[in-house]
């Protein structure tokens, strides 16, 4: 039997970004013992990268806003595939969750009368995003971290989880290792919360860090939980495209919120050319109206650059494909033009978008106050994830909860910008609360040695194999390359069938990977272990995308370019079958509660 250290908690939270920290804080407040596992150092999780803001109908800037409008905007953005109960809870509770951050020390930018300032963002009818310049995520994670460390939770930094442990049907713990030394850990817990974020590392061009390997998705799937909406992967319209080494790094939607415009190589503002019917009434039809909207004119309609991300990304792809792209296969995003409108434009841009200014200056030698940026779509977010109960965030497996990006339901076919930071606060809090409740009502489970033994041998396998020619980095690169090419922004049947063959083949090769060196902070070994979850999520995305034979939200098929009503009323779920195969189901969307249906009608 391999050596391992045991730890016991009432609630184990896996992942320490916004959702995990918020869950851990809530569970601690309920008086149970909490362990918080993070793959990186505390405070480095991907939430730190969030730029634009957190959506909450505080109505500080426009008093016409309210939870009902936020709810309607979220449902419209998700093309009515969202779980309406989650969308309701999210819209109702986000304002309290944001105000609570202020009580914990967060310093959001202010309105003239001293309240939290809110900015415009794509798909939100009114200025709704509380923000701190363009580093809102840093402010949020640091606030949660600095508050959380004094709440009595145990933090396990630089630990990775490779398997969930079960007692019968119920999840009662997790097995993992510390990245620094490679020592094994068994965590016993009465309830486990997954808050591991997304899957961006399954694609080549992504705004996501190395951590985003679909761990929570894969762990849940392996433990028997159902996944939902995996075909919906958000490609953010504006990532950096040049130089090559920064390709994919995010350029915040806040640039467009502050008046930035998209143009092609002919100088044409192409977003005016194609405005979807759902948004015709609420979109400006001339440049001047769009500009005054970004400057707070309440009578104006928003510029087409602030249409939903799925649509903007596809328009950019169209421009590039039809030969009107920029030199490095992007389009132009220009904020410098506002010097025509504002005498202090340079200072204004640096104050509103400091980290964008910094990022382009340092990494691309571009001064965004003087010239346009080159941008193109980048894999940013997965709407799909663990299927959870809307109120409690418990998955289909007892004792297993999920919150934030690794859970699904709120965003449907497409997420609105700003709704992710509010998602992780609202549902992080709920997951923590209900996991603590579950832990109080249920005793400890038993973990048999066999499960631990199996996890140990799987984890050590890359060392035990004879040295082979299979290199874990190469397999990861190839997967990213092929997923980008075959299951990216524009999809079709043939490509995705080929993707499934590639994934199967890469799975076989992953089974032969060997690594050199020892268990101390060994990136080759870590990459080899990450492959398992990356392959599961890649297969889930490809199979769900094959199943949905229509185009909707972030999912676009060139062989089925239109929406199909039949698919408008179903979500796709996936779970592991008895023989280990991936089982797909179409699940009818729950009919809307009457009062919520009325809200949607009022806000059409």
């Amino acid at each position, binding site marked *: 039997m391999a050596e391992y250290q045991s730890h016991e908690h009432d609630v184990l939270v896996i992942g320490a970004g916004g959702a995990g920290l918020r869950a851990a804080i809530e569970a601690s407040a309920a008086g149970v013992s909490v362990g918080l596992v993070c793959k*990186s*150092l*505390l*405070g*480095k999780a*991907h939430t*730190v*990268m969030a730029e634009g803001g957190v959506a909450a109908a505080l109505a500080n800037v426009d008093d016409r806003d309210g939870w009902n409008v936020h709810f309607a905007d979220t449902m419209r953005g998700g093309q009515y595939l969202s779980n309406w109960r989650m969308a309701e809870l999210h819209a109702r509770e986000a304002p309290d969750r944001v*105000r609570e951050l*202020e*009580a*914990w*020390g967060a*310093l959001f*930018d*202010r309105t003239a*009368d*001293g*309240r*939290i300032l809110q900015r415009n963002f794509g798909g939100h009818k009114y200025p709704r995003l509380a923000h*701190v*310049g363009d*580093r809102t995520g*840093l*402010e949020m994670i640091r606030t949660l971290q*600095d*508050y959380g*460390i*004094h709440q009595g939770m145990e933090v396990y*930094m630089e630990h990775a989880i490779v398997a969930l442990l079960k007692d019968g049907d119920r999840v009662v713990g997790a097995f993992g290792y510390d990245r620094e*030394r490679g020592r094994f850990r068994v965590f016993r817990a009465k309830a486990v919360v997954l808050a591991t974020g997304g899957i961006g590392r399954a694609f080549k061009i992504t705004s996501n*860090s*190395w*951590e985003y390997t679909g761990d929570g998705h894969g762990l849940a799937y392996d433990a028997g939980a159902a996944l939902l909406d995996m075909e919906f992967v958000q490609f953010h319209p504006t990532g950096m495209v*040049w*130089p*090559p*080494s*920064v390709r994919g*790094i*995010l350029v915040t939607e806040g640039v467009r919120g502050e008046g930035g415009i998209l143009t092609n190589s002919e100088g044409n503002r192409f977003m005016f050319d194609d405005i979807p019917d759902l948004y015709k009434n609420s979109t400006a039809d001339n440049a001047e109206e769009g500009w005054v909207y970004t400057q707070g004119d309440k009578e104006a309609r928003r510029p087409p650059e602030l249409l939903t991300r799925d649509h903007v990304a596809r328009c950019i792809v169209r421009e590039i494909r039809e030969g009107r792209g920029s030199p490095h296969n992007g389009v132009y995003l220009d904020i410098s033009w506002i010097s025509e409108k504002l005498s202090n434009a340079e200072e204004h841009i640096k104050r509103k978008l400091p*980290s964008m200014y*910094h*990022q382009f200056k*340092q*990494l*691309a030698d571009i001064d965004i106050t003087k010239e346009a940026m080159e941008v193109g779509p980048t894999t940013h977010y997965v709407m799909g994830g663990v299927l959870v109960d809307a109120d409690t965030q418990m998955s289909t497996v007892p004792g297993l909860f999920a919150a934030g990006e690794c859970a699904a339901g709120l965003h449907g076919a497409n997420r609105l910008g700003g709704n992710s930071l509010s998602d992780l606060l609202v549902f992080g809090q709920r997951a923590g609360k209900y996991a603590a409740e579950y832990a109080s009502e249920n005793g400890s489970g038993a973990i048999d040695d066999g499960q631990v033994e199996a996890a140990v041998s799987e984890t050590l396998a890359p060392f035990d194999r004879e040295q082979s020619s299979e*290199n*874990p*980095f190469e397999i990861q*690169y190839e997967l990213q390359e092929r997923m980008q090419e075959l299951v990216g922004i524009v999809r079709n049947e043939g490509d995705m069938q080929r993707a499934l063959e590639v994934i199967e083949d890469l799975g076989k090769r992953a089974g032969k990977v060997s*690594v*050199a*060196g020892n268990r*101390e*902070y*060994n*990136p*080759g*070994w870590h990459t080899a272990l990450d492959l398992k979850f990356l392959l599961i999520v890649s297969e889930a995305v490809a199979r769900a995308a094959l199943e949905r034979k229509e185009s909707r939200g972030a999912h676009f098929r060139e062989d089925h370019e239109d929406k199909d009503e039949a698919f408008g009323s179903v979500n796709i779920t996936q779970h592991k079958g008895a023989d280990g195969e991936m089982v797909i189901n179409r699940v009818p969307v729950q009919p809307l509660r009457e009062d919520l249906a009325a809200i949607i009608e009022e806000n059409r």
Partner: protein
Amino acid sequence: MATANFRIWRGDGESGGFEDYSTEIDEGMVVLDAVHQIQAESAPDLAVRWNCKAGKCGSCSAEVNGNPRLMCMTRMSDLPEDESITIEPMKAFPTIRDLVTDVSWNYEAKMKVKPFKPRKPDDADGTWRMDQDDIERVQEFRKCIECFLCQDVCHVLREHDLHEEFIGPRLMVHNAALEMHPLDTEDRLGDLKEDQGIGYCNITKCCTHVCPEEITITDNAIIPLKERVVGEYYDPLSRLLRIFKSKDSNEPA
């Protein structure tokens, strides 16, 4: 495209030394890209800590040609072409392996700083009013990404190893962000003077020079904190007031 040569420190806490590597450099590459390329090509167990690769998370701190830097924000084109580039781990912290150091001390030291304690809300709905002008100096401190380069370069920690006596520039900035927060009511001056060793800083400004977020650590955070400590503990009137204050019960916010 050109080939660049590197000397990268390999080893653990016990022993180690520099090893030579070379790799092809493309336009726009940063040092972290080169390290990753070396990892994939010839040194799969080369340990390096990183996350966002965009200067926002503060994970990839190291010493490049002797300068404390974020590897993700150090462009290859800004380094001399004709000589080997030296990369080594931060020296103020114990090495775990290769370029990865044990920075856990920073997290433990942070626990010593009393947390935020707001005054009662201004409005019935539990919210506060604050002017943008009043929060801007604190927002500067809150830009900190906890890369710990300021800790690395601080001679009190780096050369004199006074980790027990002095919490370092990063945590001085953390203190300043709390002390100057318009809503905060906590008093941290006693701790700064006694347990956190603010007197050890002799304002050489090395921390300010290496900060990738360009926080004016010494002038805006440490010096004002020093002034407050002096005002509180060495001004006769303040000393008297402090004696009275300590007799009052500590009213909760």
